[in-house]
């Protein structure tokens, strides 16, 4: 037995190795051949959406948008969450890429800028179609890659300025405001605050009394706002918050100090509670990136390329990495944003780049 077993094992492992090699070279050949790109049957496409966690309304609406899109093309979305843990995200991606990647479409929210590079590299080698959102290092460009179809992000300077202007209008262009910043070393916090500074330059009557970091957290914003309200008293006419969670924390603080409705509050992200607050008049404005659309669009772009309805080489350079359109929500249009929903027309292959607002700068 022992004498026969070894050659048998050797033969088996050799043939296995040969099969693997054949598979690899076949795949590589197929990937390099431009004609093979987009050869997937619609039913063979595997859709994966990956976000940090499902414990906040924004990312929950992202995954819901992905589900809705997948359903519209008769597929289901695989939902992955990595709890904001970069290592866990990379593990999930490697596991995905270790399987059948021929018709794999991934819509990924990288945890931070530095997490994007390994994801892109893995997807490119495996030939999986990838759309990333929000985070990427400036020197990494989808145009240099074969299957990294697009990178989508939002212009934080613009949104910070939009709500800054809305706040200035709400307080009549005159008076003191306080600013609640996000986590100071994130691009989102920096860009949004730069937007506020730009708005302040334009609205000379508005004075920034104080700015404090509340780390995008509702609870921290509550405490910080209460402290700032005792510090500046009735000089505070408006509160600018770098996201809606902090804006909602500030609203609670105003309520506890008996100032509800007397101070204008603005935020960014359009979480459902904030949209309702805008609709009800307790909040002045917020900005929506449309999480449900984000969840659908990444899958839609990948699906269109995988099934051959779009070719990567035909996608304009400006559409490979772009700022997507965002929407200022005020009392007038809040009703349209109360429940996040997607419009199937946005995801048709001819329309997937309709929301391009400009190239990344």
């Amino acid at each position: 037995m022992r004498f026969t077993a070894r050659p048998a094992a050797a033969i088996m492992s050799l043939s296995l190795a040969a099969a693997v090699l054949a598979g690899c070279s076949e795949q590589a050949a197929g990937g390099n051949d431009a004609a093979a790109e987009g050869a997937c049957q619609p039913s063979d496409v595997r859709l994966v959406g990956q976000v940090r966690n499902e414990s906040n309304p924004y990312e929950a609406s992202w995954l819901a948008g992905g589900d809705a899109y997948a359903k519209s093309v008769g597929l289901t979305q695989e939902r992955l969450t990595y709890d904001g843990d970069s290592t866990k995200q990379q593990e999930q991606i490697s596991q995905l890429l270790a399987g059948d990647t021929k018709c794999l479409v991934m819509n990924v929210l990288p945890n931070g800028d530095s997490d994007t590079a390994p994801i892109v590299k893995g997807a490119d080698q495996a030939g999986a179609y990838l759309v990333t959102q929000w985070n990427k290092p400036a020197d990494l460009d989808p145009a240099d890659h074969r299957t990294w179809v697009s990178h989508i992000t939002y212009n934080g300077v613009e949104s910070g300025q939009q709500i800054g202007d809305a706040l200035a209008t709400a307080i009549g262009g005159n008076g003191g405001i306080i600013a609640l910043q996000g986590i100071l070393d994130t691009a989102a916090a920096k860009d949004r605050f730069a937007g506020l500074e730009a708005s302040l330059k334009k609205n000379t009557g508005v004075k920034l009394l104080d700015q404090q970091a509340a780390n995008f957290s509702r609870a921290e914003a509550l405490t910080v706002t209460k402290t700032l309200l005792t510090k500046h008293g009735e000089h505070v006419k408006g509160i600018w918050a770098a996201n809606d969670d902090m804006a909602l924390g500030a609203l609670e603080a105003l309520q506890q100090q008996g100032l509800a409705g007397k101070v204008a509050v603005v935020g960014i992200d359009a979480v459902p509670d904030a949209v309702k607050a805008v609709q009800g008049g307790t909040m002045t404005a917020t900005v929506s990136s449309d999480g449900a659309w984000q969840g659908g669009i990444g899958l839609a772009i990948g699906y269109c390329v995988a099934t051959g309805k779009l070719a990567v080489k035909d996608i304009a350079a400006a559409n490979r990495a772009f700022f997507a359109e965002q929407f200022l929500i005020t009392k007038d249009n809040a009703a349209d944003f109360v429940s996040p929903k997607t419009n199937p027309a946005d995801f048709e292959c001819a329309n997937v780049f309709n929301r391009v607002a400009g190239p990344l700068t």
Partner: protein
Amino acid sequence: MTVTAGVTAAPRRRTRRGAAFRDAGPPVALVVIFGIFAALSPQFRSVDNVQNIVDAAAVLAVVTCGITFVLMMGSIDLSAAGVMGAAALTVSLLVANNRNDNDFGLLGILVAVLLGCAFGCLSGLALVLLKVPSFMATLGVSAVGLGVATLLFAGVQPNISDTMLKGWAIERFLGFSYLTWIAAACVLVGWLVQRYTRLGRYAFAIGGAEEVLTLSGVRVKPYKIAVFALAGAFYGLGGVMVTSQLGAGLVQAGDGYDFSAITAAVVGGTLLTGGRGGVLHSAVGVLLVMVLTNGLVQVGVSPYWQGGVEGLIVVAAVAAAVIPQRRRNQVVK
């Protein structure tokens, strides 16, 4: 200034009076830091701001109360974040809210506290029966708590409309919010438990010399579980209080409370090695931390500097507090 205050208070010999001096470090540091901020900023010393500091300290005080018992025992507890998240979601789904038709009021709050208690029990059982170090056991329980909270969250934020629970954060009695009075009651209860019940005395003894206690024929295991369960109940109440403040059940309700509570306890003079400190020490620690965060904003320290400055002052305050104790306990390790 705080350092010198602590050093001069150091007794040469360990007498009964020495014990009083030894405990004086943190309160002296509190008074000194308060004095410095009050001198620098007129807004800081206003009545409004003092109310604000005490109100802001309420949740941390309750959580720290719980963690103090665990620390006294020489164990560590990192489950606060998860337990508070689970309790926050539970209570927000049980009182009047926008997700379902429940309206259990006080009963809902009680359930949330009991849930926290059960989580604490779980940590204790893992420690005692499965011999998992408390550090790992509680970290695991925290993850379980966050998991439960995420399941309950189910994509839609539950906003509470229960007037009583919302009122806790808004209504005031003698200038302080109801939450502050609840926290004060918790500190009082915690102190009574620590001072007058077998549970509290044994928690001290376990931290000081567990072997001696075991050799004297005391079965320490049930007390260990009970201490974790008590701590869990405090975290559960903490989660309820955060929900009252924010008006909504957040999975992240307890974010950061685990470490700030340990910081507050240690700043107040409760040692990580166990057997020293107590609820009142920790309460002073909580006030110290809150005075610091509030004061730095009031005197206008730039947010880019605050984190660092706060850390430095905390280290200085702890140093001042433990220098008198260093020779006797291995707090330096």
